[in-house]
């Protein structure tokens, strides 16, 4: 951690030096630290109510009414907030069997989600149903490695979205898991799966070139596997411009965010918060107030201590 800190100080010094000598960079930027709070869920699986009080391990945990109240408390802190989901919104309780995702989508809209990517179970009632349920939300479905040409989803997704939060520009992209062998073909229809690493890197590069201070990838790839199946771990190590991967699919409760060295030698962080809305993840990012021209420099991140509430 101290090494990272030293690196950061060095970088800050270099940037500061550049500021001093370059008239092109002389635009006075206040050195104030800027912050954003990223709130995230994954694999909520239609768990609108808390787990029932039946003696099971998760009894009493979760539920959208409690999550909504918690999110509101965090919004009341008056900071900049982004609320994101990494897919598998659907399937897992009778709510989905009966209503095909309508209350799930309405709940997310009420909580003010800013974006979500698609998980394999979001195909479970068919692509047309997913597209229909999107009429209940205003936030975009963000995914860059599914080619939906010729399907009902063709005009109903975005490969990325840029959010302006105060002075910060945050780019969000999304990647989904390979569908063949996982989702029945009649459900995903003509959707074509594209390689997630290539798609994510291409999209992240685009976002960085558009001046995004931070690039977030919503991922339903899964955190890691025993074999060489593509995962968040592999994506993190192979990425250039992704600062944060918000993961899902493997239902893993991380004890802390994982940090990987990316292709630029900087840090890409991965986090995942289990499933069923048992936890809400919160990542508070601080940014150097100094603007940096050199986009290709590695960014190292110091991860602070965990607080659990």
């Amino acid at each position: 951690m101290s090494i990272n800190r030293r690196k950061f100080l060095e970088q800050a010094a270099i940037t500061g030096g550049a500021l001093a000598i370059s008239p092109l960079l002389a635009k006075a930027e206040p050195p104030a630290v800027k912050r954003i709070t990223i709130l995230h869920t994954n694999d909520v699986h239609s768990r609108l109510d808390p787990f029932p009080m039946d003696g099971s391990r998760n009894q009493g945990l979760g539920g959208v009414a409690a999550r909504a109240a918690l999110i509101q408390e965090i919004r009341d802190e008056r900071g900049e907030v982004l609320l994101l989901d990494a897919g598998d919104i659907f399937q897992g309780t009778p709510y989905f069997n009966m209503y095909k995702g309508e209350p799930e989508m309405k709940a997310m809209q009420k909580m003010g989600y800013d974006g979500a990517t698609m998980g394999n179970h979001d195909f479970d009632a068919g692509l047309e149903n997913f597209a229909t349920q999107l009429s209940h939300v205003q936030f975009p479905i963000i995914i860059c490695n599914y080619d939906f040409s010729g399907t009902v989803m063709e005009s109903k997704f975005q490969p990325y979205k840029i959010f302006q939060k105060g002075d910060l520009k945050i780019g969000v992209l999304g990647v989904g898991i390979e569908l063949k062998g996982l989702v029945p073909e009649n459900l995903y229809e003509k959707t074509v799966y594209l390689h997630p690493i290539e798609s994510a890197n291409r999209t992240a590069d685009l976002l960085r070139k558009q001046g995004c201070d931070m690039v977030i990838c919503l991922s339903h790839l899964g955190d890691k596997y025993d074999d060489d199946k593509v995962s968040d771990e592999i994506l993190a190590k192979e990425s250039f411009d992704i600062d944060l991967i918000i993961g899902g699919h493997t239902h893993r409760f991380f004890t802390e965010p994982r940090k990987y060295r990316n292709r630029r030698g900087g840090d890409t962080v991965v986090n995942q918060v289990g499933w069923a809305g048992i936890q809400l993840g919160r990542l508070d990012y601080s940014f150097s107030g100094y603007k940096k021209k050199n986009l290709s420099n590695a960014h190292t991140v110091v991860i602070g201590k965990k607080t659990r509430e």
Partner: protein
Amino acid sequence: MRRIFAFISFLFFGISSCTSIQPVTSLSFTDYRIAKEARTDTALAGMLAPYRTNMDITMNKVIGFSNTQMNARQPESGLGNFMADGIRVMAEKKYGKKVDAGFINQGGIRSYIPKGNITVGKIFELMPFDNLVVLQEVKGSVMQQFFDKMAADGGWPVSAGVKMEIRDKKAINVSINGKPLDPTVVYLIANSDYVANGGSDCEMLRRIPQQNKGYLLRDALIEFVSDFTRQGKPLDYSIEKRVVNVN
């Protein structure tokens, strides 16, 4: 030469474009566990209420009783044994044929069964997918590939009468109804259409013809539990060495 070009174009890009960023420097994190005592949002609770009321009419119906809490475990679990027996027994009833074995893919077990009353809703959570019970005639040699897939995955639920050991991610000493798996014999097996269609990487089953009466696996499990209740019996499932790790 290419490298120099890249460097120059980068300089050009860096200076001419207005893209500059404020790099991330630090990150702190908090995991909020959403506990029972948490305050709730009344507007959201109100939005949900009518959906729940209507759903509960169907889902709260009690159809049986379990003596034990059953969770999904590998290589074998009481829950898996219950489900694999359910698919085999009910397939036999529905199709009127002797079914040699029934299987459930481990990933298809989506919930647990608590000790006590079993409601319709619990079975919906256990098997939320609209998967169908299908039969296939499968040669023993292909069955071995199927068992190897289960072994590589850490063990899947198999019906009573099927035994296998897992060594080095391979299935060994497989027997069906007391007889060693014979590569030349054709077995009649019950699976969900998801698995029979090649799902969970069961490519070896994909091209084998299916008998399909449109019978939902979920309905089969509901009827299986109801049959126990009609006979005045609770479910009492545990591990019985159907699938064993030997290294």
